[in-house]
């Protein structure tokens, strides 16, 4: 009885960030053609080489079919019904970037994103991206003093074309996959980070992505370059309004890590997951890849995936440099009708490369949660070491938890371990908590947080707290 009441109360609790901001936004006509690609490029005043790059990708995309190998049930997507560019800044064209529409400001305030300098105390530099455009980047000047470049991609293309041209598409080629080709053709904005040699970035860099306009897709592109002996920690967060129709988010994140450099990339993904009946929600089809080019380089992915109707992404590490390290820590939570097929790829190319994969899946409601990962050790990657652990927790008897690891080993000096377990929260654990006066709902939150702790501990402080709250909120209504 009591359980039922808790269930009802919580099932009615809505997605916190589901509001729509009333901001005048310029949206181009929906549909995708060579004309659209040219229009986006023109609006952003891009150089000729970039337009050519986009067109190449677009022509290649036309030859591709949407892949169907994932353990996902994706309704057909009409790529002609989506608008590929939405610009909430257009209204203030004359004083662009100087004075931001107060509505827009309010939106980010509401989301708890510190865009105002008075919030400098939070100590995080933020690039806020709404729909297709970067709204504002904070702390730019302070970072510039150290030689760090942190700006929107559009700005980088104008101001640092050589750097962008050198690295753009060097990790994720447009031929890589269907969504990489699509993104390369129509990408609108995103963040660009360059950390010069020997610099340790003094603050966390963060990008906040928000989809606001209806019937649009978000196709952002992030490029992070860490030069020799540098360090940066980068955070990414995302939300979207509640809508009955599905929205597409197909991004690319490219990371280049040079000698002795380290990049830590953390994501708290909270796109709108759809309602309890599985209506609406964001399709999150993202290609994220880092290239550890340098010796002793290190790349660490941490992700907390709670949102999106469908998540389909594999943040990967190419361990090219000798002694390079890749890490992947993930918590993926699915509830109601959400589906996730996520994991990582660790490609060992250099000698003495190491990788660690810790993946924790939590499925509730009628959701399907899959881990899919590849560990490949190439012929010359002597002394490669990998440890993978994938655990799944099932809450309820209507959901699914799946594990699909792939191990391709071409070198006899490799030591590769993979283990996976699937279980549910035991009655004993719940009873123990109940006995000590902790309610069932709270106990489940406690146990799940404990279960995910190994990953949450890897997140930067502020994010860890947010992620912890998010886990409890996303689970609400799942108890039963």
């Amino acid at each position, binding site marked *: 009885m009591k359980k039922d009441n808790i269930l009802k109360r919580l099932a009615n609790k809505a997605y916190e960030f589901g509001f729509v901001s009333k901001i005048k936004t310029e949206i181009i006509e929906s549909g995708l053609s060579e004309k659209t690609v040219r229009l986006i490029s023109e609006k952003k005043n891009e150089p000729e080489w970039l337009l050519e790059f986009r067109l190449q990708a677009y022509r290649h995309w036309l030859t591709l079919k949407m892949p169907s*190998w994932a*353990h996902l049930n994706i309704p057909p997507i009409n790529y002609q019904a989506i608008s590929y560019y939405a610009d909430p800044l257009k209204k203030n064209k004359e004083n662009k970037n100087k004075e931001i529409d107060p509505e827009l400001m309010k939106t980010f305030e509401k989301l708890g994103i510190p865009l105002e300098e008075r919030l400098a105390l939070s100590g995080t530099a933020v690039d806020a991206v709404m729909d297709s455009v970067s709204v504002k980047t904070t702390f730019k000047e302070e970072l510039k003093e150290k030689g760090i470049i942190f700006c929107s991609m559009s700005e980088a293309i104008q101001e640092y074309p050589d750097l962008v041209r050198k690295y753009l598409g060097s990790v994720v080629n447009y031929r890589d996959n269907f969504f990489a080709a699509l993104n390369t053709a129509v990408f609108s904005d995103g963040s660009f980070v360059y950390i010069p040699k020997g610099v340790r970035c003094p603050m966390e860099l963060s990008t906040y992505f928000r989809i606001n306009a209806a019937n649009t897709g978000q196709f952002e592109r992030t490029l992070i370059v860490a030069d020799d002996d540098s360090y940066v920690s980068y955070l990414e967060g995302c939300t979207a309004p509640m809508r009955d129709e599905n929205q597409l988010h197909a991004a690319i994140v490219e990371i280049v890590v040079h000698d002795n450099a380290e990049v830590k990339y953390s994501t708290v993904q909270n796109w709108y997951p759809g309602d309890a009946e599985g209506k609406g929600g964001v399709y999150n089809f993202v290609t994220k890849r880092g290239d550890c080019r340098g010796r002793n380089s290190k790349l660490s992915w941490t992700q907390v995936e709670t949102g999106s109707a469908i998540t389909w992404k594999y943040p990967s590490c190419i361990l090219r440099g000798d002694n390079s390290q890749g890490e992947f820590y993930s918590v993926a939570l699915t509830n109601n009708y959400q589906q996730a097929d996520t994991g990582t790829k660790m490609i060992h190319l250099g000698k003495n490369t190491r990788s660690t994969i810790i993946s924790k899946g939590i499925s509730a409601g009628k959701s399907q949660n899959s881990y899919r990962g590849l560990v490949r050790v190439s*012929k010359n990657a002597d002394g490669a070491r990998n440890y993978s652990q994938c655990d*799944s927790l*099932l*809450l*309820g*008897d*209507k*959901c*699914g*938890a*799946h*594990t*699909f*690891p*792939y*191990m*391709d*080993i*071409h*070198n*006899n*000096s*490799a*030591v*590769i*371990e*993979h*283990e*996976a*377990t*699937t*279980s*549910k929260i035991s009655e004993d654990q719940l009873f123990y908590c109940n006995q000590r006066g902790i309610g069932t709902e709270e106990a489940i939150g406690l146990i799940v947080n404990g279960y995910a702790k190994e990953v949450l501990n890897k997140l930067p402080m502020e994010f860890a707290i947010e992620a912890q709250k998010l886990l409890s909120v996303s689970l609400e209504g799942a108890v039963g």
Partner: protein
Amino acid sequence: MGSEQEYIDIFDRHRELIDEPCAKLLNDERAKAIIRFKATGFPGIKEENWLHTNIAKRFSADYGMNLGRVEVKAGTHDIFTCDVPNLRTHQAYIINDTFHPGNNGKPLPEGVILGSLNDVAENHPALLAPYYNSLAGKGDSTVQFNTAFVQDGVLLYIPKNIEVEETVQIVALLQANVEMMSIRRLLIILEENSKASLLLCDHSSLQQQSLSTQVTEIFIGRGASLDLYELEETAGNNTRVGSLFVRQDADSRFNHCNITLTNGFTRNSVEVSLEGKGAETRINGLAIGDKEQHIDNRTLVDHKVPHCTSNELYKYILDEQSTGVFAGKMLIRPDAQQTVSEQTNRNLCLTSCAHMYAQPQLEIYADDVKCSHGSTVGQLDESALFYMQQRGIPAEEARHLLMYAFAGEVIDSIGIDALRDRLHMLVEKRFRGELNHCKGCTLCK
């Protein structure tokens, strides 16, 4: 389409010849299978289940097919004496793809049938109709190929409450002096509360290229129990495409051990469907590869009902340029609560040219389950080697000891003492490189 078109042409041209000696049951299923085969052809290497095994290429060689049922004159016990010492068995042979009765000592218990699949299908169609191709009908296109071309095989039928005490041994032999394809079929039916153990040996030492496709369907009734041991000892020019389908009813037990000692190119697929509560299944495998051997094992354990247990252990030892592929899936359907399922895959790569592809998979739709899998790829433990050398065991001997112990875990799961001892011996010989041919048979000499 490549080679499949040639096979389709052969089929269309010789349809009458293929149908003529066969029972109606086989021909009816053949008609359905060829339609499915024509629709898909052989699987390509882009298909998830065939990523590392290019089977279409193996079928493209020009093999002879014995569609006209030309009789092979063989005194089976003359050519095959590789028996297991101290193990009395009921024997049957499949020479190329034709059934030959063996030289049996003790008669089989009453009601037990060990005979030609085609003959039984001809004489007792009602007995086989509910079973034949009922599991394999959903198989992939290599299985459809087998159903379309198969003309004979072995049937083992054990009625209710009968226990066959002596092991049944079915030996598949290839005998020809041309490039040869053998298409064989096994149907094994255990009625309620019956019990048997079965040893399948796959031998070939043809000088020419050969390919054998083998489809086995096994039905284990309520409370019945089957031990199945498959041993492959073929030559480097042999391709084996084996598919095993098992259906288990309530409280039944199935213990399977598949050992690939020597081979050329092998693909084994095992699908176990647990359809009755309390069923228990154990599938083990050991693959030892060197030269350019290719060993692909694919397993699926489908838990359809609650309270079933499955346990899986596959081990690979890969030397020289050999390739190992393992893909094991545990599928727990929504109603299959209280399932306990465990899968382990351990692989040793001994050279830098050996390749291992491992895909242990879990697909789980029920919450009250205990499922786990583990997979490792590595080498022999340096410190263990050092420890043994310290105590005066030469490096080479220490390596053998460790490898032998590694393989031992699988061999020890074999329930027949005499067979287990024999396999320990064979595996040890294999590591020492003394097992190029089995020395007992005329074929191998």
